[in-house]
Structure formats: C-alpha cells, structure tokens
C-alpha cells in the first residue's frame, strides 16, 4: 500500500511536468494550428533561465588566498560574490540560496519575450504553410536553440540546487497514519506539484474568466468566425504564444533542482509531450492535463518491481503502449475534438 501511494506521488510529479509542457503545446496547436517542435526547447531554456539567473547572482570578484594552492600549485584564487558583499553574508546567502524560486521573476519576462520574438519573427510566416513545413522549421529552431545553450553552457548537466529548506524530504506516511519513514517524499517535488497545479489553475481561469481568454477559446473552436467578428486575432495569437512559452519556461525553471539541467533535456521531453498531447486529444486543454497525469502515474506503476517481474521491460514501453491502446479505442484521444489535425 505504501509503495502504491509513493508511486502515485511520483506519478503526479512526473505528470505535472508532462502536463505543463503539454498544456503549452496544446495552446499553440489549438489556437494557432502550429506544430511546435521547439516547445521542448522552451522548457529547456526555462531551466537554463534558472541556471543563468543563479550565475548572475553568483557573479563575483576574485581574491587570492595565499594559504591555499590550486591544482597547479599556484596560490588559490577564491571567488567572492557581489551579492554577499552588498547584502552581507546572511542576507546575501539567503538570496543565493533562493536563486531558483527568484529566477521565476527573471524567467517570466525572458520567456515571454522569446515567445514574442519566435512568433513574430518566424512562426507567423508558417500559419498557412503545411504542417510538414512547420515541423521542419520548428525542429530547425529547436536544434539551433539547443546548440546555442550547448555552446555557452557545455554538454554536461549543471547542478542547480533548491533552497536549503526544501532540500530534505517529508514524512508523508506519518501524516497519513502509516509507520514513520515508510512514505517519505522530497519537499521540492511537493513544491513542484503544487506549483504546477497553480499554473494549470491560473491558465484555466485566465481562459475562463477574462475576455481575452474567451476570445482565445472561441478561436480554438472556430477560428474563422472569430476572425470575422473583427477581433484582431493576430495580436492575441502573439500574446498566446508568449504565454505558452512562459508556461513551458516556468515548468523548466522549477524542474531544474529535480534533475540538473542539460542542453538536450528539451528533446528528451519533446517526444513524450507530443504523445501526451495526442493521447489527451488534439485541441483539448483538459485532455492534455489529464493525459499528462495519467501517463505519469502509469509510468511510475510500470517501474514497480512487482510489475516488472511479470512483464520485463514494461517500463521501457508503457507510455507508448498506453498511447496505442487509447488511440485505437478512442479515435481522437481522451478528449479530442473532431477535425483538428486529422488530415
């Protein structure tokens, strides 16, 4: 039982990453009709926003420490950060410690600007082009973005820590009345789950309760009609794209402490998030979220020893297997709408 609860927690956590990326992808699919292969790259750039911001915070000046030596036997150069110099060691240290959550503030404008530039500079020329062309150009863009990150940050993962207070793990079992230490779960993963829930909630309420959101939803249902109403749909599409980029970026920022960011993490997530979107059903936002969590939980269950001993290798293929079964039983995924990207 405790094992199952643990895997459900794991699944929710994985699922929230899938769901956040899939949400952004669906927004773009649904409103703009564009297959965006660069969406994984936006997630990756989000994670590197966290890396960059903490690098900026760590910008430092060099002091030579004569008492110690470096690997070549010369006096050791010690880096001192400006933040600590300006704010004092205690406050400065706290700021450095909270680099990742703070970088949300940095990431939102950066991601929105990246989204705007992408949409205005490139994607908008591809609205009327075949999906194949969209795939080619966004895939090219994904490669370029990824290689730029590799050029500046290298290929190895870059450790990015969560704030000290979230580094430990939390005894979930005790809370639920199990024996102590049976279900412990890292704080930061709980934070990630809650954060995702908030973002998903925010996106949904934004679409539900604002006029902008209503226009966008109407646009998703019937683009021509909304265009006929004389609403400047293009401007809204640009905003939409910026928003989708920001959602992907935020998913990346908060993911950085879970697994050290590397330049190819976007591609790693890309295929899975496409599967999630399609299983959820093209053009359906709730479908994308539902499928994200469903696949996350199933993937976690499939990696349990009890299941692997019956079906060896099932954890390698579970997502794809589930995708096939769902698509064969429900022609348009879980909640897909008719006629979206079916040609």
């Amino acid at each position, binding site marked *: 039982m405790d094992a199952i609860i643990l895997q459900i927690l794991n699944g929710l956590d994985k699922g929230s990453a899938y769901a956040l990326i899939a949400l952004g992808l669906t927004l773009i699919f649904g409103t703009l009709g564009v297959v965006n292969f660069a969406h994984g790259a936006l997630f990756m750039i989000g994670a590197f926003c966290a890396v960059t911001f903490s690098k900026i915070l760590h910008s430092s000046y060099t002091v030579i420490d004569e008492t110690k030596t470096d690997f070549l036997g010369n006096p050791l150069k010690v880096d001192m950060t400006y933040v600590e110099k300006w704010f004092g060691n205690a406050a400065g240290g706290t700021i450095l410690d909270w680099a990742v959550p703070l970088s949300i503030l940095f990431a939102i404008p950066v991601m929105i600007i990246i989204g705007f530039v992408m949409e205005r500079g490139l994607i908008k020329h591809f609205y009327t082009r075949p999906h194949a062309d969209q795939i080619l150009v966004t895939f090219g863009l994904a490669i*370029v973005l990824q290689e730029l990150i590799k050029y500046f940050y290298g290929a190895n993962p870059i450790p990015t820590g969560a704030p000290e207070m979230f580094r430990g793990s939390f005894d979930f079992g005790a809370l639920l009345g199990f024996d102590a230490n049976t279900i412990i779960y890292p704080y930061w993963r709980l934070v990630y789950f809650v954060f995702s829930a908030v973002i998903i909630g925010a996106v949904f309420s934004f679409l539900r309760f604002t006029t902008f959101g209503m226009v966008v939803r109407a646009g998703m249902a019937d683009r021509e009609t909304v265009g006929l109403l004389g609403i400047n749909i293009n401007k809204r599409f640009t905003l939409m794209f910026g928003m989708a980029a920001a959602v992907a970026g935020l998913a990346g920022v908060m993911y950085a402490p879970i697994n050290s960011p590397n330049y190819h993490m976007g591609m790693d997530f890309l295929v899975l998030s496409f599967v999630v979107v399609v299983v959820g059903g093209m053009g359906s936002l709730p479908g994308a979220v539902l499928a994200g969590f469903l696949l996350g939980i199933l993937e976690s269950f499939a990696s349990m020893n009890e299941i692997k001993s019956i079906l060896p290798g099932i954890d*390698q293929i579970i997502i794809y297997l589930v995708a096939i079964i769902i698509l064969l039983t429900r022609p348009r995924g879980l909640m897909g709408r008719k006629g979206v990207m079916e040609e």
Partner: protein
Amino acid sequence: MLGLNKKDSVLLLVVTLLAICAPFILNPFPTGSAMAQFNAGYPDLMQRFVIFGIFAIGFNILFGLTGYLSFGHAAFLGVGSYSAVWMFKLLSMNIIPAITLSVLVAGVFALLIGYVSLRRSGIYFAILTLAFAQMSFNLAYSVLTPITNGETGLQLALDDPRILDAAPANAGSLPYPSLFGFEMSDTYIMSAGAWQFQFSVGYYVCAIVLLVSFYLAMRLFRSPFGMMLRAIKSNQQRMNYTGLNARPYALAAFVISGMYAGLAGGLMASMDPLAGAERMQWTASGEVVLMTILGGAGTLIGPVLGAGFIKYFENIFSKINDNILHQWFAFMPDGIEDIMVTIVHPFIGKGWHLTLGILFMLVVTFLPGGLVEGGQRIGRLFRRRKTGRNDNADSTDSTKKPAE
C-alpha cells in the same frame, strides 16, 4: 524508354549518369589540398548518400503521395538491418539472401504496424507509428538484447555458423559481405595527378539498387496506383464516395515504403555488417522526414537531394576542426586569421548541428518546395536569361505540377 515519358527518361538518365560518375563529381578537390576536406567521394559516404536516398524515396511514396506522416519509419530500416546481419551470421555472406530477407521482414513488419496505425489519420497516425517505433527501439536496446545485441549492435563473430559458406581460408579473421565473389569492401583507387578517385564495389552495388528503386518509384508515381495515392492525400472523402477503398491503397503504400526502408537497412548492413539499435530511434525517423521535406516532398528527386544534403553535413562538417580552420585562413595576417577561426568555430566540428539547424530554417523559410524548388528557380532563371525579355510565359508558369 522503359515505359517512361520523355521528361522522366531524361531524369532517370541524369540520375544514372550522376550515380556512375559520383566518385569523380564528389571529389572535386585535389587530395591534400585545403579544400579536400569538402570531398565526399569516399566509399562510406557515397554508400550512405545512396542508402539514405533509397530510404527517403520509399518514405516519400508514403508521405509525398498519400500525405500520411509516419514518424516511425526508422523501425523498418532497423528491422531490415537486423535481418540482414542475421543472414550473414547464419546463412551466407552473400548479400542477395540478406537483402531479400530484409525487404520481406520489413514488409511484414510494415503490414502489421500499418494495419493498426492506418485506422487513424493525421497526427494520430503519426503518433501511433512513433509509438510502435519507439517501442521497437527501447526493446531492442534492452530486453531483446539476445536478438539485437543491444547497445553495441549486432555484429559478426568468428564462430557464426554461416552454413552455406565454405570455411574461410583465414580462420582468424571475419569474412566480408560479398556478391558472388565481389567483396563490398573492395575498392579500386585511381590517381590522376593530384586527384584520387575511389571506385568501391559496395558503392556501385548500392548505386544499381538505387537506380532500380528510383525507376520503380517513378513508375509507381506515374501509375494509376500512384494517382490513387495522390487522391488519398487530396480528398479522402471524395475517394470514399467514388467507390474506392482508401485503406488498402494507403496500406499498400505503407508496406511498399516499409520495404524500401528494409532494403535500405539491408544494404546498410551489407556495406558495414553491424546493426545498431539507434537506427530505430525516433531521431532516425525524424531524420528521414526532414530529408524528404528538405528535398521536396512529393517530388521524385527531392528526397534523394535531401538525404545527400543532411548526410553531407553530418559527415563532412563534423570532421572540420580548428586545426583545419587555421590551415584555411593561414594566408591571412595572424590577427585576422584568429578572428576568422573564432567566427567560424561554432559552426564546425561539434557545432555541425547548429549549422544544420540554421540551414533547415533557411531552406524551409525561403524555399517552400524544398531544394527541388531551389533547383527549379535556378533553372527558370537560366531559361529566362536565355529566352530574353520577350518571353514572359515562363515566369508566370509558377503552378507546380503536383507530382514532379
């Protein structure tokens, strides 16, 4: 000629000539010169051009004609490679049985996957094929290792049975794939002044297979069957209400293109008897999609051009290093030389992906019809210059023939 109209005959003739002369055409720079880096006329790369050309031609039969975008075609290439290597291990080093089996096994595999996947269309179809291929890759890399030799890839061993072959003269070394005595690795090198040209048996075997495949694809494009496939892409609804069953047509196209992929896989294993699991990964499937779109989907020659383009960058640009850059720019003053090296550095060697990504974006943005359209534009430019200003007919003739 051969049941083709004049235009197609000319195209086939040009392709044949290019294939025969490839060792010359691809080695335009003298060996040892600074530009020799850009020579592509060595057996491995020439074979790869041709093999991926076949793969892309096959993919185009599905994607270019019917519009069904398969994101799992590499699985058939992989299955073909594994079949071929197993034939080398068990039966004989002759490539005929190996390639035959590759094509057949890939065909059966495609029939199964196609039968299931073609129940859906559009992106749902793409994801189904992707899912099947990724399952194949993941399993081949891990639990199916006894059949696939997982991470390393399936390779030949000294103690393989090879029941049809006589015991090799030299028991300590592995035999080479061959075609009735001609070994694929045999190469004849011709030196002509500063130039050096390589004529490889393997390449010419591949080239002959390419020409046959190209010819068959051409016939298929021009056949009533090909017309039906284009009809599927154009309007499936009308097709159904015209008494035509689109499913078997699409399935036949899927199986044929799967067999092309299997053929490419079998040839790849014949040129270099190793079958790695990575050639089934989604990135490999994505690569053939890119080749086809880049070259020009739905055109006959486009996919081959796209395949050559991508493989050229992969194999040539990845091998340029700073050392070579310094040689190129050595004629410049030191300071400028260093600046030039610094500017070019990110785009070569480990940066070849970056160059490729930028080129993808440029080509698709400015040449919506792919490289073929680039060719057409250049051709039109020439024609216009020749015919002068009086003849404006050419410039207005921008409607592309659908299946050219």
